[in-house]
């Protein structure tokens, strides 16, 4: 039943296809077009391949789509010996091959006996547009939408008839909208003033970049009709105000996402530095250990990247947490109350950890794969899209914050930690084992740093220097937010992130960092306790 409406669509589509094809190629016989294209594809250089692709696409052969798709994905190979075209699935040094023309299975072969049919960017573009033209009749609305998008570029006023035909049979709303936009653009390119003015009226507030370019090129035209110019300016203004609004939304999102990374990196430090007052210069390296844990777990289970990522969270917490406890028990506990010596000792530890990782994993960066659900972006409208990895990390950091907050507020460990941090002597008098609490608190802060490492492994390099990049930012956030206050870290981190992103566009990335740093220095002069000063005895 669902097939019924689609059949009607085929006729106008075919007309469209024919219009789009180069005339010369239509003259030749279709099957020779295909075989000729294939032989050029095997032997030709990039320029010849370009023609071959057009020929193959124009041939209308049923194998064309699969062939072009495989070529685009880099799965099309030829056997070096006899130039047979094959689809190949490569695993290590072996390849599983299938005939590209006949489709029959040809078994396995050594990878070295195959040669890939290579393409470059130019070919990639023409492959995509060839595929899109075939795809105008695709059952998938998303594919049709993209096909229409590609059409807009080469549109002329003559095409409006075809577009009307397409519109009549189109059922999907977003594709209809795109088709209407295409028709309006076609009208703008034509000579009919009345049609152009109506088209402009309909384009009010349309955010598609094609429309924006069309209108600015219209306005640049010489001896433009006055009424048309007035209307065009009006439309441009309406689009412009929308663009700047969404620009603001985008900036805010960028800022929050940068802030969430800062919060994640700093929150472990907020505990070790804020609660037990240890200046831990090895904090960055604990983050790094978390990132390497992610890498190792992914190596152990290469086929389920998503699951590996989830397992990495507790694993990284344990690895970094235990390392933290070892550091605390073996070094830091002898240095309580001597901040300068703690600083130097932990800095030494950070260098040791870095060089250890260099010796074990080599100084080269390791690659951590991103699961499919974390790559790409969510398209809100043509000019605003939010990247999914950033959204995930934003949510993740809020969850970590909430979890940590609950732990400190609601659990008995949290109570003891707060008691020790507020008044060590009194807490001990009440039977709290201060030394044990110190070790656990340090372990907790370090473990959280490890979790931050899991998130950072998705954003940046996993290498021995990972930690150094975040240590200064982490201290900045904690000091700005107020030592010993988790809320301060959250608000401080997000504020710094947003401020950074609003300064960046007009000052540049380098200057933005400097301005933020200067601002914090001045702020600390005025309010040495940070945004949210800690109350109680520890503050004195």
């Amino acid at each position, binding site marked *: 039943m669902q097939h019924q409406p689609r059949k009607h669509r085929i006729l106008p589509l075919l007309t469209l296809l024919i219009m789009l094809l180069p005339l010369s190629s239509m003259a030749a016989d279709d099957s020779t077009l295909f075989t000729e294209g294939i032989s050029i594809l095997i032997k030709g250089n*990039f320029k010849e391949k370009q023609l071959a692709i057009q020929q193959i696409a124009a041939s209308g052969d049923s194998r064309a789509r699969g062939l072009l798709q495989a070529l685009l994905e*880099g799965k099309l190979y030829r056997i070096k010996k006899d130039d047979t075209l094959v689809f190949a699935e490569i695993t290590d040094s072996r390849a599983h091959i299938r005939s590209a023309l006949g489709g029959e299975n040809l078994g396995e072969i050594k990878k070295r006996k195959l040669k890939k049919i*290579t393409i*470059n*960017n*130019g070919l*990639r*573009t023409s492959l*995509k547009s060839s595929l899109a033209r075939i795809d105008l009749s695709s059952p998938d609305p998303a594919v049709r939408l993209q096909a229409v998008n590609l059409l807009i570029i080469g549109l002329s006023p003559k095409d409006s008839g075809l577009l009307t035909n397409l519109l009549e049979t189109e059922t999907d709303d977003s594709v209809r909208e795109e088709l209407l936009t295409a028709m309006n653009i076609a009208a703008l390119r034509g000579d009919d003033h009345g049609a152009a003015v109506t088209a402009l009226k309909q384009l009010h507030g349309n955010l598609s*970049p094609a429309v*924006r*370019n069309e209108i600015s*090129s219209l306005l640049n035209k010489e001896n433009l009709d006055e009424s048309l110019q007035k209307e065009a300016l009006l439309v441009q203004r309406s689009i412009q105000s929308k663009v700047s609004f969404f620009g603001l939304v*985008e*900036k805010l999102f*960028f800022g929050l*996402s*940068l802030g969430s*990374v800062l919060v994640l990196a700093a929150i472990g430090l907020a505990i070790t530095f804020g609660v037990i007052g240890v200046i831990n*210069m090895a904090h960055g390296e604990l983050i790094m250990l978390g990132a390497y844990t992610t890498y190792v777990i992914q190596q152990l289970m290469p086929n389920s990247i998503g699951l590996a990522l989830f397992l990495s969270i507790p694993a990284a917490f344990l690895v970094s947490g235990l390392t933290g406890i070892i550091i605390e028990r073996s070094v830091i506990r002898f240095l309580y109350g001597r901040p300068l010596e703690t600083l*130097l000792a932990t*800095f*030494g530890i950070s*260098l040791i950890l870095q*060089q250890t990782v*260099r010796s074990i994993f*080599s*100084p*080269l*960066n*390791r*690659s*951590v*794969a*991103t699961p499919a659900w974390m*790559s*790409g*972006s969510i398209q809100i409208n043509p000019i605003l*899209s939010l*990247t*999914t*990895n*950033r959204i995930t990390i934003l949510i993740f950091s809020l969850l970590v914050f909430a979890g940590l907050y609950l732990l400190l507020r609601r659990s008995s460990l949290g109570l003891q930690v707060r008691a020790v941090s507020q008044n060590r002597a009194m807490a001990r008098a009440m039977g709290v084992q201060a030394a044990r609490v110190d070790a656990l608190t340090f372990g907790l802060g370090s473990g959280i740093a490890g979790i931050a490492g899991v998130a950072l492994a998705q*954003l*940046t*390099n*996993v*290498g*021995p*220097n990972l930690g*150094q*990049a975040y240590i200064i930012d982490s201290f900045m956030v904690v000091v700005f937010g107020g030592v010993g206050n988790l809320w301060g870290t959250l608000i401080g981190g997000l504020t710094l992130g947003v401020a*950074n*992103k609003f300064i*960046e*566009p007009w000052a*540049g*990335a*380098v200057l933005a*960092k400097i301005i933020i740093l200067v601002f914090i220095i001045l702020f600390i002069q005025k309010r040495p306790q940070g945004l949210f000063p800690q109350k109680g005895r520890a503050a004195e």
Partner: protein
Amino acid sequence: MKSTLLAATLGCALAIGSVFTGHARAAETIKVGVLHSLSGTMAISETTLKDTMLMLITEQNKKGGLLGKQLEAVVIDPASDWPLFAEKARELIEKEKVAAVFGCWTSVSRKSVLPVFEELNSLLFYPVQYEGEESSKNVFYTGAAPNQQAIPAVDYLMNDMNVKRWVLAGTDYVYPRTTNKILEAYLKSKGVADADIMINYTPFGHSDWQSIVSDIKKFGSEGKKTAVVSTINGDANVPFYKELGNQGITADTIPVVAFSVGEEELSGIDTKPLVGHLAAWNYFMSVDNEVNDAFIENWQSFIKSEKRVTNDPMEAHYIGFSMWVKAVEKAGSTDSTAVQEAIIGVTVPNLSGGYSAMMPNHHITKPVLIGEIQEDGQFEVVWQTSGMVAGDAWSDFLEGSKDLISDWRSPLSCGNFNVKTGECSGSK
């Protein structure tokens, strides 16, 4: 400040500990200095070059050494600490009495050791692409000068891919700044308008690329074909390419051509979002010829891993080392002055299937290759210059350097001779 001081001291201690004098031989040897960071931030790139040098020296010894003597590598770790580079260079030359030094990666480290090599009249072979605007009697630049990498890449984009708008994105230090200055002047000389060039600098190790990539996207959505010319260095590349992929910028909409991303860097990246982006180098591991095959085989068996890749700076060391060997044989001695005279004009095979020659300006001739990144982390060559390109020490596109030439042959023997005034300013 305290922390950097401490780092320096610790680095020193580490470096002194790692002086490696090889096997104590009774017979006389020729010492070759290897000055690459094995710890600190630059270890990521430079460790491989140290291994390359050890391999080349081992091979030369198997062939019977040089002038009837065995070669001996003296490896010192300057720990990514620029002042330490100068100190260690002095140690290599004065204490270890090395015949030549192969080393340095960053321009800062090269500038730091330069006065030492000039003062003690020793030889440095520098294997990395750099910004040009320098020519020293004691330094041989075997990496690419801007006209051997940046300018051909821009030509390719302009002529073959019809790029009309340009984003010049770089890390904020001397190499990107100078290269972009040259490129900007070059683009303007080709009639590109100011509005069609966007220049952007970011700090070292920048990891939050959201707004910059979004700006690039907007810049590229204005109807004209846009490309990014990237001099972004080191670690900042991974988050940059990831962000490009996530924001939906693919190589066929806005291609990125990079000058600092090679096979080694790609081996630490998830390459899926990068496929189709470009890099310009003078050598790719994927180049198909016998010399290169042999080199890769030697390398992988020397390093005992079939997964290790080769890259452009390694080839530069290969060329530089062969040139030095040939020049020493020609001069019949390892004396610096004799080798300096002998090496000009020396021609050796490179790994891209041609021959490279040492020019009188101490730069070499190389082919320029443009490659597209493939899913397996290798490059597919999509374009290359028809012949060798000679390195130009002083760019023709910068005010103040276009009248300068460099020629270390006597009687001129000058690194920055001004053809207009007829004067040699600076070093002789």
